[in-house]
């Protein structure tokens, strides 16, 4: 039983007659950063949702370190996830939003939330409501919610969206330090530069299929 990789076998997803992901076969090794690039509509986000167990595949299966999504587990375990634009409760501040989320599993205390906010460059005690955050600040908060519980896997859909150059550099450094801690990271982007600087492997998608692998 494979416990070292994330295996995607013949993953296919159809909506009606449209194949949004077509017969994708990939292996993501543990402890590395893997990038998926492609233009809008190439199937990157749908693939990430399938890896997380948020959508069911029409065909194929996804094996997360020995556990098959939909058979052994319903949703990916021990993972921090950002898919599309991160959504938060707009009438609460950053800390409260993360506090509400941390209450689900009760794995961490307030200190871990403060640390996560500090790491992504947000002031932990700021009372500003998330509804008034810029896109970049929401993106940083999304990354904070993904890392705060110290997950083994990070699934990040376009994590650099909305960040300025300084922010992009900070997040790149963060992801590299998380990789050194042994985390498995899968990120997507439509920006090749973001991916190629960071990633150990790069996969290019277009129209639902893999067209290039490095």
């Amino acid at each position, binding site marked *: 039983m494979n416990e070292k990789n994330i295996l995607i076998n013949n993953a296919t997803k159809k909506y009606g007659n449209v194949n949004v992901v077509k017969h994708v076969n990939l292996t993501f090794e543990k402890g590395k950063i893997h990038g998926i690039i492609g233009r809008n509509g190439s199937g990157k986000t749908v693939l990430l949702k399938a890896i997380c167990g*948020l959508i069911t595949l029409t065909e194929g299966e996804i094996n997360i370190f020995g556990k098959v999504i939909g058979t052994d587990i319903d949703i*990916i375990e021990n993972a921090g996830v950002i898919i599309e634009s991160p959504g938060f*409760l707009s009438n609460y501040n950053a800390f409260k939003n993360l506090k509400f*989320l941390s*209450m*689900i*599993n009760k794995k961490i205390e307030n200190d871990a939330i403060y640390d996560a906010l500090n790491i992504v460059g947000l002031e932990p005690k700021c009372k500003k409501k998330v509804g008034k955050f810029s896109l970049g600040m929401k993106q940083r908060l999304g990354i904070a919610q993904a890392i705060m519980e110290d997950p083994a896997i990070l699934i990040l859909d376009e994590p650099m969206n909305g960040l300025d150059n300084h922010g992009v550099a900070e997040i790149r450094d963060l992801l590299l330090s998380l990789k050194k801690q042994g985390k498995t990271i899968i990120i997507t982007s439509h920006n090749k530069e973001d991916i190629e600087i960071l990633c150990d492997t790069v996969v290019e998608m277009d129209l639902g299929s893999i067209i290039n692998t490095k």
Partner: protein
Amino acid sequence: MILLKKALRVTQNDILNLWSELRFKICIFLIFLFTSIILEEVNHFAYRVGYKISPWLLPFIMNQRFMRVILFSLFLFLICEVPYSNSNQLFLLVRSGKISFFIGKVIYLFILSIVYTCIICLSSILIIIRHIDITMNWGKVLGTLTLTDAGADFNHSIKLNSNFILKFSPANVYLLSFSLCVLSFFTLGLFVYVFNIIISNRLIGNAVAAIIILFDFLLETDIVYQRLIYLSPLTWSNTSLLDLRKNVTVYPSLFYSICGYLTLILLSIFIIIACGKRYGIDKIAN
């Protein structure tokens, strides 16, 4: 046990968000507005005759046809996107897992039904607060309006059932009406939830719920044959259309009403859990 604990935390998250939701505030405002409209003439009558009103108004409000449409519609407005109703649901789902997430939403719907019914009760009390009489009896105002035509000049629109006044204590009727209201709102919420899960188009789920609300409304007129009340879950909470005196009328009994609600609720929960495991959020969130 862990499943239930996570489910309760999902519920807690939704409840914490509820108080800041604009939709909830709009519903509270409109409940107070419509309750004040419907109780305006009762207030006038009490003022004119110089007697105070007892607080046991919920059963009468919930027997009023137009008020029922408004209250059910507002509840539908509040829960129309269940289960994927808040912007942070994706983060909750990944942390809790599908089953805990869906059970948490069911528990949230139940608690919301209780809260919503409490708001209706509170509004009925606050609207008459200047003329309220804290008593365990029906009081002279409700008694007079029900059993005589003294209120005819005031054109009051709440439906008063003489059976209540003559046969049952206010506390019993109030408790019964409260319980049936909670069950009816909860059942409506579960209908929407089930349709939103099974059919990927949320508009259809809400349209079906709207039809159910309309069906309840039509059953009180001469348009539709009244035996169809047996097939209208929302109408089972209308105490003026229940046979409380055991087989005297064609209406369903209280036993039928409660069993009907429990059956629909359990069936809905079963479907939610069974379909929730099978379907991804693309079925729910689109």
